[in-house]
């Protein structure tokens, strides 16, 4: 799925479209905001971008031919976020596939449970992940999306959803069990 039939659409949207939009798409405003908040790592930017995305979704509403409205609107939100990031924080996107897949020694459920109970620490660990990992965790664990929905939102095959999710979980675990961020960087340098 490319950027979601956004090029189609007919001449004008009428008030009937608006009612349909309010019924089908607007209930997903929380989902839209939550995804934008995590992709942009801030509430203020997320408000602006989520608003922009919702209005864009309304403009492209004729291109929505039924089906999963949440996945459809989240796809638009995600695209809007990435466009915004490219323009405003290009460096964040540049580093995203700088990943190493090394075993995680000593990540016992106990240490994880302790680290995971700290909201601030969990927030920081999630925000420190590259956007592609962050978004997949947000979609799966916070939004409860199925692999099929995630595949639609992020425009990748379902098999890739599973492997990306595996890597994302691994990375988050590692970030949480490496207590000290400085140590974290040293470890990276060594690898």
């Amino acid at each position: 799925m490319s950027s979601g039939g956004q090029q189609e659409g007919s001449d004008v949207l009428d008030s009937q479209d608006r009612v349909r939009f309010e019924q089908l798409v607007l209930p997903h405003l929380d989902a839209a905001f939550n995804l934008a908040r995590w992709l942009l790592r801030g509430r203020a930017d997320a408000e602006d971008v989520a608003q922009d995305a919702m209005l864009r979704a309304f403009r492209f509403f004729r291109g929505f031919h039924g089906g999963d409205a949440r996945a459809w609107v989240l796809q638009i939100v995600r695209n809007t976020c990435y466009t915004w990031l490219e323009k405003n924080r290009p460096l964040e996107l540049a580093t995203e596939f700088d990943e190493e897949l090394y075993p995680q020694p000593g990540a016992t459920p106990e240490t994880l449970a302790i680290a995971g109970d700290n909201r601030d620490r969990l927030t920081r660990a999630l925000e420190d992940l590259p956007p592609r990992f962050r978004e997949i965790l947000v979609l799966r664990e916070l939004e409860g999306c199925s692999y099929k929905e995630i595949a639609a939102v992020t425009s990748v095959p379902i098999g890739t959803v599973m492997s990306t999710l595996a890597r994302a979980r691994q990375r988050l675990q590692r970030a949480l069990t490496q207590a000290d961020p400085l140590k974290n960087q040293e470890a990276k340098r060594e690898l």
Partner: protein
Amino acid sequence: MSCDLTQSVLHGYMDGELDAARAADFERHLVSCSECVAALEAHETLRSSLQRVGLYERAPLALRQRVRSELHAPADLPIPVANAARPSSWRWLAIAAAFLFAAFLGWKLIPGLRGESAEAAYASAIVDAHLRSLQPGHLEDVISTDQHTVKPWFDGKLDFAPPVQDFASEGFPLQGGRLDVVHGRTVAVLVYARRKHLINVFVWPTTEPAASAQSGSQLGYHWVDWRKGGMEMCAVSDVNPTDLDALRQLLAN
């Protein structure tokens, strides 16, 4: 890490995305692979942390209102999408825009033109009250999941006794209650949760006869209204209409 499955199938398994045969295969594998067992436990611990500490952030009310007013802005009613490059369509669009704008004004300013005006005004008042309640600190005056705390709280504050019941075991835990004003009348409000969503149930006495449920939606919120036993109740939320109706049935019985 030596087991390949830790990096792949394990995740499909914990997300419930494997078909029955593959899930059974993986369960057999778990019996002999301590690495996968440990990884599964670690990932599940992390997942429950992510969900428990409340990282989900709901849209602020201000955003909701801005989106809503943009959608309703008359200038946005006719939105040219694809044909902006064709000059001849502009003229047609301008005429259409003027016509729609006039129609919109008429619809806005002359309620009589709208057959459902009373109902629409009522729905607006209820949805507005629901939105107001989502502002920080506005949701509950008495916060309790215990119906025996919430019910007495209303005593002396109202000239009627709203029925207060917890439906936690049916998936609608009571969150608390508050007073609100709808159409100039003081009403009781019971707050229920449904997964991540909140449901406001407005309750006030009525002299009108019992009536079966009426429902509708506005701005993406659904409402259902009914009268029974001298009380009128209206539940409003962004949950889906089926869930809302399930709560109505619980309350109406």
